[in-house]
């Protein structure tokens, strides 16, 4: 299996090898080895949970530095709608968009504008009965990866459209080429992202040959220079740049995409554990009559991403205020643009969960695993570096650990050994032994 790009990295000097991240990883993708956390690349879905829970800030999201703006002479900013919820005392989105121009971008293309394209396209596909129900949204890359490795049966249900940011990037570049007469490669397209998973999705696109985004910047990095830019912009005559309505802006939080489809029977779940529960239930067909399912890995939706500044629920309250007087939607399509459609369906990957590609061997390993689990204490203490006794048993049969890695089993073995040694307490070397002792033996 090719090594995947992941947008989370470890600062070894900060990692204490504690168990916080291994216990919270929803796909059991982290082990502590050599005193440091180690990510099992094929299992990681870039959800960002480990970044959130690490008390030592050793897990760090990967994204591009602000200095990458210097790589291009013409720069377009693609602000995620979550960005709009990051500021106090703001009534007008145009202040942010003009602020982006002041901080050095030549143009702004709102991701929320492209989100309305996807909302409209979803409604069109739904009306043509072209989608398998329930439709599962495909905008959150961590969710798509999760389905790919753990719920492959549900891949057919994924909305066959690109995430809004890719649509925004493609449309923005096309418009800029027309407007400036530059070559497409001379134009730098920068996504101002609330999360790191989007960076992985740019480096290794899902269902797309090549991403249209050149660099992914973190909202938290953009925040300080943007604040300065906004101050400048607010004092002058501003350009009217905002081109999206309520539907587009609503994509920033959980439930926004679902309500934008105007489909009645829909569900929106956020937070990776909740998402897993819903997917389990969907796989077992426990929901009847459900038409659309929106899933976001982060609590609250994209406003909960690890690259944001503000508390997600405060950000959501601000977004509600900002979008109050906007039109419902600024996008009305005659037809679905090519940029909105995925190049190819997202396919199943070789299962990373099976114990062996050979069925007989997998059966044997599972039987061994059940035996090992019975011997382990069941405390799930994490001292072995695995998140649970079950996970350790799995590691053992996969050949990555041994039973001695369990401190409790080791202790048991030591006490057995000590008992054996104590049998020699009465031993007296032969030259010192008295005759009657010898007789008794």
């Amino acid at each position: 299996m090719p090594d995947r790009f992941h947008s989370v990295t470890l600062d070894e000097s900060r990692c204490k090898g504690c168990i916080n991240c291994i216990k919270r990883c929803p796909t059991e993708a982290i082990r502590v080895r050599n005193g440091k956390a180690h990510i099992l690349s094929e299992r990681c879905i870039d959800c960002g949970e480990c970044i959130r829970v690490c008390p030592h800030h050793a897990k760090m999201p990967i994204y591009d530095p602000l200095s990458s703006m210097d790589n291009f002479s013409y720069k377009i900013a693609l602000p995620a709608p979550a960005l709009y919820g990051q500021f106090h005392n703001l009534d007008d989105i145009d202040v942010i968009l003009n602020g982006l121009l002041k901080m050095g971008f030549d143009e702004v293309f709102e991701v929320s504008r492209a989100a309305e394209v996807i909302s409209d396209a979803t409604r069109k596909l739904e009306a043509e009965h072209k989608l398998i129900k329930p439709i599962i949204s495909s905008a959150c890359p961590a969710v798509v990866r999760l389905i790919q490795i753990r719920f492959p049966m549900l891949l057919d249900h994924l909305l066959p459209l690109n995430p809004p940011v890719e649509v925004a990037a493609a449309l923005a570049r096309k418009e800029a080429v027309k407007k400036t007469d530059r070559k497409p490669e001379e134009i730098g397209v920068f996504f101002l992202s609330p999360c790191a998973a989007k960076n992985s999705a740019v480096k290794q696109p899902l269902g797309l040959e090549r991403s249209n985004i050149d660099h992914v910047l973190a909202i938290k990095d953009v925040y300080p220079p943007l604040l300065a830019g906004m101050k400048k912009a607010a004092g002058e005559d501003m350009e009217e740049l905002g081109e999206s309505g309520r539907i587009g802006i609503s994509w920033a939080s959980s439930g926004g995409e679902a309500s934008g489809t105007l489909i009645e029977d829909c569900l929106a779940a956020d937070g990776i554990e909740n998402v897993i529960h819903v997917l389990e239930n969907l796989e077992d067909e426990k929901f009847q009559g459900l038409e659309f399912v929106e899933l976001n890995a982060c609590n609250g939706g994209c406003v909960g991403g690890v690259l944001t500044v503000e508390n997600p629920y405060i950000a959501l309250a601000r977004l509600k205020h900002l979008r109050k007087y906007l039109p419902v939607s600024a996008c009305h399509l005659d037809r679905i643009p090519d940029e909105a459609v995925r190049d190819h369906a997202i396919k199943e990957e070789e299962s990373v969960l099976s114990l062996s590609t050979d069925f007989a061997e997998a059966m044997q390993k599972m039987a061994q695993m059940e035996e090992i689990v019975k011997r382990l204490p069941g405390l799930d203490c994490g001292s072995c570096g695995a998140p649970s006794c079950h996970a350790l048993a799995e590691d053992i049969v996969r050949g990555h650990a041994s039973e001695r890695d369990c401190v409790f089993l080791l202790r048991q073995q030591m006490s057995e050994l000590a008992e054996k040694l104590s049998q020699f307490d009465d031993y007296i070397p032969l030259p010192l032994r008295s005759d009657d002792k010898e007789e008794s033996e």
Partner: protein
Amino acid sequence: MSGIHLHYDVPGDDFTRAGEASGSVKKALRQLGIPAEVIRKVAIAMYEGEINMVIHAYGGTVDVEVTGEDITMVLKDTGPGIEDIDRAMTAGYSTAPDNVRSLGFGAGMGLPNMKKYTDEMTVESEVGVGTTVTMKVYITPKA
């Protein structure tokens, strides 16, 4: 090749715990590399069975046997038993009480769905003694 045997107790009167057994079976089957379509059938049929045991029979036990060819699920309870098995197998026929229906269960599709998602199914039941449902899902389709 000897099979894998998994055993679960399904507690009665606790809807929140119905689905635990089918959930762990699903995880085990995934680790064995069983095709996703087969896992889905097993999970759906078994969850239906678990729910039935909770609603009608104060819980029971589930025993799952996995061999190279198929997956067998034996759901056993010591509940009231089924008076008329043919009728119980009819889609839409239900004896579930109102409080259960108000939770969205009791649509009369339990046994019919279990039959639909499995390749073999037998129901043995004696009134006042209990019910045993045996279901089989083939891993490789039989010619």
